[in-house]
């Protein structure tokens, strides 16, 4: 498990990490309070906000998420940066294992030398491989663990976050967040991960 004491402040976020961060007002505010900044790509924005099917993710929730995202974009906490065709070509031989959004994030990460936050294990592995280091890709539970460890998120807020995840049909994610909460508690009690 990654060390929750460390987490890079500027990251590229893909669709699943945008959903996980912005579906909870608590999570989003905790990242902003800790001066985290995010970048994404037009491909990701297109994926996220071209939805027409609201049977799983209600329109109300979808609009809420989009509104939060747009607000933080207006505050310059989220930047949308394009990649070029040459950025894509720089990735070299890519297997067809990733979706276009994931490819755009890796291309951007390479271009501006920032790490990626993704909650897909294949995308995580590919990002680390293509960007040349495990430090180049992380996930949102790790980010949350870092915030919890630094007491930016309280136990009460963690519960609220869990409720938000359930409301956004992402309740199954919580088990991963709990692992990092436990890590933080272990460190606090025993001084080790």
């Amino acid at each position, binding site marked *: 498990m990654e060390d929750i004491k460390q987490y890079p402040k500027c990251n590229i976020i893909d669709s699943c990490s945008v959903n996980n961060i912005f579906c909870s007002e608590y999570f989003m505010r905790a990242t902003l309070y800790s001066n985290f900044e995010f970048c994404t790509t037009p491909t990701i924005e297109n994926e996220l906000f*071209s*939805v027409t099917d609201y*049977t*799983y993710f209600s329109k109300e929730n979808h609009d809420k998420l989009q509104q939060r995202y747009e607000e933080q974009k207006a505050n310059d906490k989220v930047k949308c940066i394009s*990649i070029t065709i040459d950025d*894509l070509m720089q990735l070299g031989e890519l297997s067809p294992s990733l979706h276009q959004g994931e490819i755009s994030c890796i291309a951007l990460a390479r271009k501006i030398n920032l790490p990626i936050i993704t909650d897909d294990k294949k995308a995580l592995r590919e990002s680390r491989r293509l960007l040349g280091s495990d430090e180049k890709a992380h996930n949102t539970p790790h980010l949350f663990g870092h915030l919890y460890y630094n007491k930016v998120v309280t136990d009460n807020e963690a519960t609220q976050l869990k409720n938000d995840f359930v409301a956004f049909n992402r309740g199954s994610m919580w088990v991963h967040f709990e692992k990092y909460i436990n890590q933080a508690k272990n460190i606090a009690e025993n001084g080790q991960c």
Partner: protein
Amino acid sequence: MAQRNIGEKLRKRRELEQVSLEELAKATHITKTRLIELENNVYDPTGDEVLIISAYYKEDFKYFITNQKVSAIEQVEVLYRSKGEHLSKNDRKAIFSFLYQCTAEQFALDCIEKQPLEIQYDSYANSRKKTTEQGQTLATQMRKHFDKSTYYKTRDYFGFVRSLGIHVFRRKLESNDISGMYIEHPIAKKCILINYSEDTYRQNFSLLHELCHALLDNEMGFNLSLESDTKNTNDSSDNFAEYRANHFAGAFLVPSHLIEPYRGKTIDVNLVNNLALKTHANPQVVLIRMKTLKIITKDKYQQLKKTKLRKEYKEDVELLNSTDKLKAAKQRLIEKGLSPYYVRNCYEAYNNGFISRAKLAQMFDVPTCKLGTLLEPFKLKIDSI
């Protein structure tokens, strides 16, 4: 260095699918003005625009920006030029979707190292003429392997053809004219699409008809079979490839050893229907085989040719041995153009860490959040992370 005739490729791809600039602009959130500029090479697209447009078309983005042969667009273009009048806009979209699934399936099978069955057969590559005897001989050769396989018991012709490494999908096409098609894809190789609007036994015939084209007629790289092609029994047909493929399909479905025992016996409607049920071929096919092998006379054939087997007796092998819930789920998949075989193999590639969740969703043409719902009847799970 990226290829710079991107605009031409973008336009060609859009026109092949008969997508208007307005439709593309709405789907991709790229303005119509910008799309026109891109198609006219006024500007190069951004990397994101290439990715967004390729996601919309379900094409490998490398097709647009390199010279790599990763798409069957050239064959499709020739196909549409020769037979495009039979294809509605939705059918054109369906064909591109089918080609995408073939490449996705090939990738998944390569990841999980599923090897095709290797079968020796005579391709008649050096023959000057196409003859019905070639179709018959090929059917005998292929049938030997089928009879020894696990697919024989249930007459799972689709499973058998897939085991040869050929990608097979069914889709409800709008055009009733089309019974099936075959395309040789540069990456996925042999790909067969069958019109799901036809009845199950007819689909079996169409599948085997296309199999013959895939094995013997791949000089063009594609074939589109119309209903009239697969019903052609005219000896003096100009199109011997179609006639040979019909002979192959008939001989494969109804091999001579199954009907020879009835030579000299009374052939009636009941017998014909029983043989149809046994072979999963329509009574017409059984009768044509009997006439070809002179087990019945032409007069007898005329007398019996209107024999029909009721649709409810024609089981779809892909739906057999399933609970009602699973049967309904499989049926939904097939109607959507997927197949249980495709779903299982793509899932296995995902579960073994070869593809991402978002990629799997794209392969199934569903939003990522709906993957769980699609897979649940098969008792397959998606990780939340």
